[in-house]
């Protein structure tokens, strides 16, 4: 074979570069498609839902009349469920992450726990709903309550919080631990006064991302039997009940409820197009909640990367 002439080599290079450029266009196209979808989604909901962006929409209960229906019970329900979720998932997740990074010995128990956590992340969310239906709703008798929903979502986001806690702890250099141990601190004192505070921003990021995921989850909550049409709020602590009694501090936990995603689902699946407007407006409110939580998390992480220098 004779060697290629300069002209032939240049032709080969030119072809290669053309392919490079075609690919670049494809890459930018795919990326912009992602952006276009986000923009189209938000724009569509803003435009369609604009007539519902009133104070009444936030203060009205669900109704048979689209223009009178609001999201009061839905957003209150979402906040209460998130409260329960955070209360359960944050201590558990941080404790589990702390255990796996700082305490766990390399043995089969640790291995099983680790394999478990990574496998749980791949379990479809609706399966968590079935778990909760069998265990929380019937076995434990929590019923179709805020408590059941909050615990379900807590289990769902536990892997997210554990993983981010572990990553945050792993980023702390060993010299911090050694320094603390060297002055006579116990392992727990080291964790409490050094590891947890230093890992806090990373843990917080994980918690926010987890909660953002939980607040948008629909399937597991529908599965445990959340109602789609609720025209009352859970009883506030010590408020008067209809039967003349007074609500206890935690009565709201056992109350039936609805949440934002379920309200949207309900309105989306109604044949009357007037409810599309409500679905769009409620969808926008939910998006705003989720995206602002994510944005906070992304910002936190960005700041963390910039500020922390060990």
């Amino acid at each position, binding site marked *: *074979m004779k*060697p290629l002439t*300069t002209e032939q*080599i*240049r032709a*080969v*290079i030119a*072809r290669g*570069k053309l392919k490079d450029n075609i690919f670049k266009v494809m890459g930018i196209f795919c990326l912009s498609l992602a952006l276009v979808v986000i923009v189209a989604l938000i724009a569509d909901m803003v435009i369609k839902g604009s007539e519902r962006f009133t104070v009444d929409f936030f203060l009205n209960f669900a109704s048979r009349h689209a223009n009178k229906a609001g999201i009061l019970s839905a957003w209150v329900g979402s906040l209460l469920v998130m409260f329960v979720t955070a209360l359960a998932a944050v201590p558990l997740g941080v404790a589990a992450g702390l255990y796996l990074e700082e305490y766990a010995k390399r043995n089969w128990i640790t291995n099983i726990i680790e394999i478990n956590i990574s496998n749980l992340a791949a379990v479809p969310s609706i399966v968590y709903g079935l778990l909760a239906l069998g265990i929380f709703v019937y076995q434990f008798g929590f019923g179709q309550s805020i408590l059941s929903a909050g615990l379900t979502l807590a289990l769902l986001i536990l892997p997210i919080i554990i993983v981010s806690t572990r990553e945050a702890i792993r980023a702390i250099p060993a010299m911090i631990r050694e320094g603390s141990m060297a002055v006579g601190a116990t392992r727990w004192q080291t964790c409490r006064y050094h590891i947890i505070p230093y890992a806090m921003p990373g843990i917080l990021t994980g918690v926010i991302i987890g909660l953002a995921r939980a607040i948008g989850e629909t399937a597991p909550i529908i599965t445990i039997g959340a109602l789609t049409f609720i025209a009352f709020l859970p009883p506030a602590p010590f408020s008067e009940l209809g039967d003349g009694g007074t609500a206890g501090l935690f009565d709201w936990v056992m109350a039936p409820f609805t949440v934002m995603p379920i309200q949207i689902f309900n309105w989306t699946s109604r044949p009357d197009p007037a409810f599309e407007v409500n679905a769009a407006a409620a969808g926008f409110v939910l998006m705003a909640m989720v995206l602002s939580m994510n944005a906070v998390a992304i910002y936190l992480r960005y700041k963390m990367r910039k500020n922390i220098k060990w």
Partner: protein
Amino acid sequence: MQIQETPALKAEARNLNFFYGENKALKNINMPIYDKKVTALIGPSGCGKSTYLRSFNRMHDLYPGNRYEGEIRFFPDNTNLLSADVDPIEVRMRIGMVFQKPNPFPKSIFENVAYGLRVRGENNRRVLDDKVEHALKGAAIWDEVKDRLSELASNLSGGQQQRLCIARALATDPELLLFDEPTSALDPIATGAIEELVHELKKRVTILIVTHNMQQAARVSDYTAYMFLGEMIEFGKTDEIFIKPQDKRTEDYITGRMG
């Protein structure tokens, strides 16, 4: 005694400066590379010898913020390799390179060697077979791998991998072959095999080799350049550099007083 003839030039650095961003890494380097000879670059770590070597095939163009000044003239056609209108890809097709750590591609032994030919658009199986065999023989590894050409290259030992990488570079008949400390990750026996190979290869191709090991430079090279802090301190025939260096700094380095 025979009258000494100056060999033909293959390349020549002229007033070469190089910058990593603001940081000037090469300072006004002038140096010839003679055709079909082995030229060794020695000097303490961080002296700029790898930076200099990587200028020849424009590897610095892969990263943003790098800048060349001056020229590297390439002969016989007298092109300035660093000129803005010379395509780095074309430069790399003419100049082969072997790296510090063996870096075979995640492909079969055969496909590793055929890689450069395929890049050039050659897909004729007969031509590929022929060229791959020739290159593997040239890199003195044919006998070891001829029965396992379809195995993954990563199954080979470190020394074999490095000879495979040499075969990969040879397959496309480069005019100049750059070696960037090719034996620093290898054991003494594998190192010996590579050094022998370099000696053999200079019949076919011009070689520029960076080494951190002075004995290696003395063993394999015809010419040696000593670099220090981005400057070319001394260049000359290897015997002369090692026996009677002209510059105090070269002498300090060679005698082990420095570096």
